[in-house]
């Protein structure tokens, strides 16, 4: 990064299927106020704003036009970010760039979604190429059902593997007061009673649709030195774009995830990611995606994630904590989801994650966002400046 950049405040709302108590502006104000409070600053201190969500999910476009009025951004520079599922991750990236470039010393990013308010099918349809793809798409469930089947076939993982992931995430979510689904799932058997959406994908394997928002405050090194909270340093970030259908040659592909993580690790000298990275908050919309993508990121060998899951190493109090927040499978307000990953890693690196604080001493954290069918944003955050 051109200048050292740090996260100095994070805030999020509580997340539910429906938040009729607030409209979109009020929801964002809730997250922004929480982040400002955490950073112990006034909104007037913020020099620029980055806002974003999934286009059309509430039947609205260009929401930043009126949103400025609800987050204290009137008259200030701002950028709207709408990169689909990766929006939350890109929001963080843009805020980092605005500070790293030297343009601003204090920037706020806020992501949100109120999924219940619109017909998400309409929004998702606009994503796909109208000639070649739009007419055949049916949303995320079909995609992740196929992904689950592929993973099982390739690795020999039994149906119980996905259920084990779900039990872990439920245990994590119960530690997180912000999580949407805080279910008392204690056993694999309970998860396997969940109905199929499309076999082998069960309802409990898949993320919910949530309404909620998340915000972070990003500061320059100089400004971070004068902030109330211990800064969490932005080590690096990257993104990979591709539309899967054109490049995968008809086969299932996780090339975007592989490229993003390997690039990030290579240029930061990380050779053994699972040893060198203390915590990962990954954007995986289903239990099976979590297993396959841990492998794609290079945290473990192909076909071994479900074996490690069996041994319990991904629990928050074990060797390699994955999604100690409960992850996307427990909370998914799309435009905020990627930013929640960043905020949760920041809390972990600060040591402020409360009951979900990992046991391992946190030094380096990995967060990711994913969207479309082949778009990855990944961040590396650090508790130390260098």
């Amino acid at each position, binding site marked *: 990064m051109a200048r050292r950049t740090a996260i100095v405040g994070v805030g999020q709302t509580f997340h539910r299927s429906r938040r009729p108590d*607030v409209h979109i502006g009020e929801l964002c104000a809730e997250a922004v106020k929480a982040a400002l409070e955490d950073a112990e600053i006034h909104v007037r201190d913020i020099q620029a704003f980055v806002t974003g969500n999934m286009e059309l999910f509430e039947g609205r476009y260009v929401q930043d036009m009126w949103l400025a009025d609800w987050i204290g951004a009137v008259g200030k520079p701002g950028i709207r970010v709408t990169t689909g599922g990766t929006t939350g991750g890109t929001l963080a990236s843009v805020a980092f760039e605005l500070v790293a470039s030297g343009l601003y010393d204090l920037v706020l990013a806020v992501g949100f979604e109120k999924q219940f308010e*619109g017909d998400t099918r309409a929004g998702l349809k606009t994503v796909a190429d109208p*000639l070649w793809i739009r007419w055949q798409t049916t949303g995320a469930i079909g995609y992740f059902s196929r992904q689950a089947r592929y993973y099982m076939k390739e690795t020999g993982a039994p149906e119980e593997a996905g259920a084990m992931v779900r039990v872990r995430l439920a245990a994590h979510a119960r530690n997180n007061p912000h999580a949407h689904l805080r279910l008392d799932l204690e056993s694999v058997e309970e998860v396997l009673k969940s109905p199929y959406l499309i076999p082998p994908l069960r309802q409990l394997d898949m993320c919910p649709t949530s309404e909620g928002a998340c915000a972070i405050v990003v500061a320059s090194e100089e400004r971070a030195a004068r902030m109330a909270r211990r800064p969490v340093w932005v080590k690096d970030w990257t993104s990979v774009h591709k539309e899967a259908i054109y490049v995968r040659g008809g086969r299932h592909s996780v090339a975007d995830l592989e490229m993003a993580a390997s690039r990030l690790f290579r240029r930061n000298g990380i050779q053994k990611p699972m040893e060198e990275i203390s915590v990962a908050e990954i954007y995986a919309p289903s239990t099976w995606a979590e297993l396959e993508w841990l492998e794609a990121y290079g945290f473990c060998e192909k076909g071994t994630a479900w074996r490690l899951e069996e041994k319990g190493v991904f629990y928050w109090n074990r060797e390699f904590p994955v999604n100690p927040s409960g992850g996307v499978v427990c909370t998914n307000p799309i435009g905020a989801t990627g930013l929640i990953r960043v905020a949760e890693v920041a809390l972990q690196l600060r040591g402020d994650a409360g009951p979900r604080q990992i046991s391992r001493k946190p030094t380096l954290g990995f967060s990711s966002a994913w969207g479309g069918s082949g778009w990855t944003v990944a961040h590396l955050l650090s508790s130390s400046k260098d």
Partner: protein
Amino acid sequence: MKTREPLQVLGRLYVPYANWVGETTSQFLCELRDKRRLRGTGCSECGKVFMPPRSVCPTCLASLETWVDLPTTGLLMTYTSVHYSFGREYQPMDPPYLLGIIRLDGADTGLCHFLGETSFEELRVGMKVEAVFKENREGNILDIAYFRPIKAAS
């Protein structure tokens, strides 16, 4: 290769929505519907009274929890006449119609609404107007049918 015939992909998307208006606006709309009452919210930090009511001050982000009763009368800040037809599904009624921004007495901000029982020629910036409510109200800002000029007592 020469383009013989430029082709298009045709389609139409259906985009329904049901946006929650939130607790503050819900309370305002219920009182408008049930009691024909208009209320704003006040910011104790900057002293402003917002109409339409807000739950968050746009300047200082303070929570606005104080309700302020407002009369149904106000001043016409500006107005216009709509003649252009944009498509019935995108307009509340067929043109021509009159629109104005009204600042209710005691409020600091303006509300955009229809003007009725008047003509473009009769309208003046700064004239006193009052709300005329619909008989059948549904909890929508259009439960006010329109604002009309207050005629001097004859």
